[in-house]
């Protein structure tokens, strides 16, 4: 039981730090509350969908911004809008916040600003991906040791 307690403590602390540092907001907690016996892997599944979606959208944005003969800012904005929506729905607060700034640059048709945001969003996405993978690994370890995942409010 001591191992389980230790792991649970680690999970709680790590989860709290992710919220404190703004990686996750309350919407992520909402997702965790939706997980039940019918869908025990709901959060991991949605996170995977999100990461796939992120990669696709980031690639779209990069391609659109690379166009030498004139950037289609509407196209870039469409992708940023999607990413803003997804990140908001999953609780990926830092990614969402970059998207908000990104949209302003799209509207202003500012290529430099957009490129900076693209860099930032790529950075935030990969940070979040690593952190969530760590969180999910902790969850797995708790379950493997016979414990249950603490509910973090």
């Amino acid at each position, binding site marked *: 039981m001591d191992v389980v307690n230790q792991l649970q403590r680690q999970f709680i602390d790590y989860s709290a730090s992710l919220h404190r540092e703004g990686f996750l907001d309350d919407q992520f907690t*909402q997702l965790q509350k*939706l997980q039940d016996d019918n869908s025990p892997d709901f959060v991991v599944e949605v996170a995977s969908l999100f990461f796939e979606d992120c990669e696709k959208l980031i690639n779209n944005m990069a391609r659109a911004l690379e166009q030498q003969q004139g950037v289609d800012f509407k196209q870039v904005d469409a992708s940023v809008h999607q990413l803003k929506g997804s990140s*908001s*729905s999953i609780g990926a607060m830092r990614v969402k916040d970059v998207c908000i700034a990104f949209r302003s640059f799209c509207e202003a048709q500012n290529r430099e600003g957009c490129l900076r945001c693209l860099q930032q969003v790529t950075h935030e996405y990969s940070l979040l991906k690593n952190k969530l993978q760590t969180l999910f690994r902790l969850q797995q370890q708790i379950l493997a040791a016979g414990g249950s995942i603490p509910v973090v409010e």
Partner: protein
Amino acid sequence: MLYRIMDGDYRGSCGGCSEDMTVEFGYEPHVLAVDDNLIDRTLVEKLLKNSSCKVTTAENGLRALEFLGLGSDERNSLEGTVSKVNLVITDYCMPGMTGYELLKKIKESSVLKEVPVVIMSSENIPTRINQCLEEGAQMFMLKPLKQSDVRQLKRHLMKYRS
């Protein structure tokens, strides 16, 4: 016209009604959820299933209309039939056909016009909200949705059932 704008911080109290939509409706309501964003579609599906709804999802307005039997080649085939769904919940911003345009098409149909339509959006734009409500949307909901929003939706629908 009475309406409620829901923001993410809304926390209504239930006042004694059950959490389970099955009890209120007497059966599992069949909801058609329309959203071009895969993550949002997944989330709304889960939220509705957690409230004992049968859920069909569609990724755009055209697919939604096809499912409802209002596809372009099926225009006359709906005469005398009953709606497959008890509720349509749709995102506003979708490429091709917006949620507003989908709402209009549903309200123009003699068979489907009584089906409540709820519009979701990540943006709180009063003119957009009014436009949808005036066109007959039952409710307008702000994304991202939470379980409490779906509970609130259920209570609202119950209040206005005949």
